[in-house]
């Protein structure tokens, strides 16, 4: 009987202890999140974001089109 009681008590203490541990862990994570949120600051850039379209022009394409470009310039000399 005595043995059973102490066993029950131990289990109760164990359960409380376990709960406290998980609470502590959750608290630590929560605290860490709050702490870190102060470090990561995202601010919008004051200048507009410019995407350079020139990256779409590759040297090999320029070489391929070179002859056609020369032809066009000779054909329509009045606008070049």
């Amino acid at each position: 009987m005595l043995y059973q009681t102490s066993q029950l008590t131990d289990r109760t203490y164990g359960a409380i202890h376990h709960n406290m541990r998980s609470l502590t862990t959750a608290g630590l994570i929560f605290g860490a999140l709050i702490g870190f949120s102060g470090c990561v600051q995202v601010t919008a850039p004051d200048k507009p974001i410019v995407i350079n379209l020139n990256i779409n022009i590759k040297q090999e394409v320029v070489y391929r089109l070179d002859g056609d470009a020369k032809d066009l310039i000779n054909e329509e000399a009045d606008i070049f």
Partner: protein
Amino acid sequence: MFDYMKKNKALAVVGGLVLTAAVAVPAIAQRDPAYAAARASGAIGEKPDGYLGYVTSPSPAIKALVEDINIKRKAAYTRKAQETNSTVEQFAFTSGCNLIMRTAPGEKYQTPAGTWNTRDASDPVRDPRCP
């Protein structure tokens, strides 16, 4: 009778010459004098993107002239881009490489950095992708 034929022949020759001139003129179409003058004066210049740009603040006449030519250029680039399976920007850029190379000494061209240079006897400063 012979006289009449002779006259006719002369007429035919004149007609032929006129016809030749009419056909030949579009083939040797040259720059409009106002456009040539604006280029020579350095008021406008060639940009790396294949279009004309203003070196100095343009007069309304020069502005109209440049806009007209740039619209015609874009139409030509668009047509050629379709023929060559490329984009208008790619074809215009390739043309820009050539147009800057063809500038005459004294004419203006824009460097990749955006500054306007006067063409001299040396090679112009162009994009490294230019052939």
